[in-house]
């Protein structure tokens, strides 16, 4: 199999402007199928903008984003989502006034009501996140922060998706909840789900990541394997200004 065939997502010299601000300066990296690729970098490096650009929420002014070899440039967000890309934003994007059930029905595009949800998949999701079963008919806005994050991830996987874009899922969560999320992501990883994960929690990044792309000032400054970065403290210092060893 060729290298190009293994790449599910490719960013090639992507520039993004938001109003008068030039945020991404030629971002290039790729996400291989069946792998978890971590997108790391300091605050303001452009990680969230990269995910939003892939989703078409902000349009790239130059460069190209290719998914399964086809350009996503200029496509509207619903068309990009319909290709099988799910997005979990940093804010989680939960519909607070809707119940847990309604949030999941909405995310399952083929289902018109709860009765049409894939039962086996739902049981699998309940296995990953038991709280969602308990709070099934409860307004999502009343859930705790960790439960909301579980719902956000569950929404992304309620139907099979080719690629998950997940933005800082551990942000603001208690360590025990982060442990639950890591277990769930490991389960997704075992099922060969392709994930592009933005994360500031380096313990999570190291335990989940197969590959890594590090961003700084709106550009990718390093790509490689997660293991290579995790084992090289000097590289961590240079790229991230810290050592993964002290962030466990």
């Amino acid at each position, binding site marked *: 199999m060729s290298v190009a065939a293994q790449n599910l997502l490719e960013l090639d010299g992507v520039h993004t402007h938001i109003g008068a601000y030039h945020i991404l300066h030629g971002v290039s990296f790729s996400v291989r199928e069946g792998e978890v690729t971590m997108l790391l970098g300091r605050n303001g490096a452009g990680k969230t903008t990269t995910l939003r650009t892939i*989703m078409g*929420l902000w349009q790239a002014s130059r460069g190209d984003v290719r998914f399964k070899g086809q350009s996503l440039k200029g496509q*509207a*967000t*619903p068309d990009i*989502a*319909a290709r099988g890309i799910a*997005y979990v*934003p940093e804010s989680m*994007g939960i*519909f*607070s*006034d*809707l*119940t847990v*059930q*309604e949030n999941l*029905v*909405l*995310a399952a*595009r083929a*289902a*018109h*009501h*709860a*009765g*049409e*949800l894939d*039962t086996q998949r*739902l*049981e699998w999701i*309940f296995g990953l996140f038991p709280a969602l*079963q*308990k*709070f*099934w*008919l*409860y*307004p999502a*806005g*009343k859930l705790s922060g960790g439960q909301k994050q579980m719902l956000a991830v569950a*929404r992304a996987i309620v139907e099979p998706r080719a690629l998950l874009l997940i933005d800082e899922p551990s942000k603001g969560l208690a360590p025990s909840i982060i442990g639950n999320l890591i277990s769930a992501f490991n389960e997704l990883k075992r099922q060969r789900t392709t994930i592009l994960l933005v994360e500031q929690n380096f313990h999570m990044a190291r335990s989940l990541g197969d590959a890594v792309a590090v961003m700084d000032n709106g550009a990718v400054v390093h790509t490689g394997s997660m293991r290579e970065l995790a084992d090289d403290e000097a590289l961590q210092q240079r790229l991230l200004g810290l050592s993964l060893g002290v962030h466990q």
Partner: protein
Amino acid sequence: MTVASTVRVAASATIPKAQFDWRPVLLLAVIALAALPLIGSPSTWVTLTVAGLAMGMIIFIIASGLTLVFGLMDVLNFGHGVFIALGAFIATTVMGGMTVWAGDSGAAQLLAVFSAMLVAFAAAAALGWAFERVIVRPVYGMHLKQILITMGGMIIGEELIKVIWGPAQIPLPLPDVLRGSFLLGDAAVEKYRVLATAIGLVVFAALAFTLNRTKIGLLIRAGVQDREMVESLGYRIRRLFVGVFVAGSALAGLGGVLWGLYQQIVIPQIGAQVNVLLFIVIIIGGLGSTLGCFVGALLVGLMANYTGFLAPKVALFSNIGLMVAVLLWRPQGLYPVTNR
């Protein structure tokens, strides 16, 4: 195993139940009961209460589309009144044209009224589609321009109405079958207000069913909260918005027929006259909230009728006063939409 049985496992455990917020509904009851000793006569109170509910229902029919349009796309449509005026003028044409045919037959007169509603509904829907495409679409996300251009659209609409129907006021009398009152003890309840209340309840039930029991409704409710996330899930919010705009315009056309029959006189500015009232209702209710719009419209209707009877001079400001009081109690409105 079905989804129901999958989640039934949890149903046997203690599932936290979401509490419905009854306080705004109780406020309605409190205001109605508080008015009783002030009015004195129970029969007058019944008459005023039914009149207030009927007025509130008509306002709800007109305003329900406006609140969803604002909630979904942050579009401030100050031109909503043109759909009301169109509905009212179409009623003068349709009912005028069917008067001779209907003659003394009550059923035929009712058919004329319902025909007027149907034609007004369809015409306002068509105008709403054109209005969204030509006037609203170029100014998405630009509030100041939305205010200016939609007001401009309403002025043009009013002028076009003058071209078609003339600038003079046109009487829109109630047909004989809707004149007069039912007697409930000593209380006289006007037949037309009962009909308006019934139509308002049907519209509310249809909206509540659509919003709470269908996927389209789910999308609308979600879109009001976070339209970007709805798009990220793969749905075209703009297409949905056009549908809501058209439906909202159609309801305003229907409301225009009811409002015209309520006033019994139709002028080109009939829509502009209720515009302020509509915005008071959707602000009181919580922008984007259909239930809030419903309760807010009933509050406005009741207050207008009670104060109109008790202190006519105060009635001019009663709705502004109501809005101030509600916003002091709940700054986001009676049923605020989360995430807004």
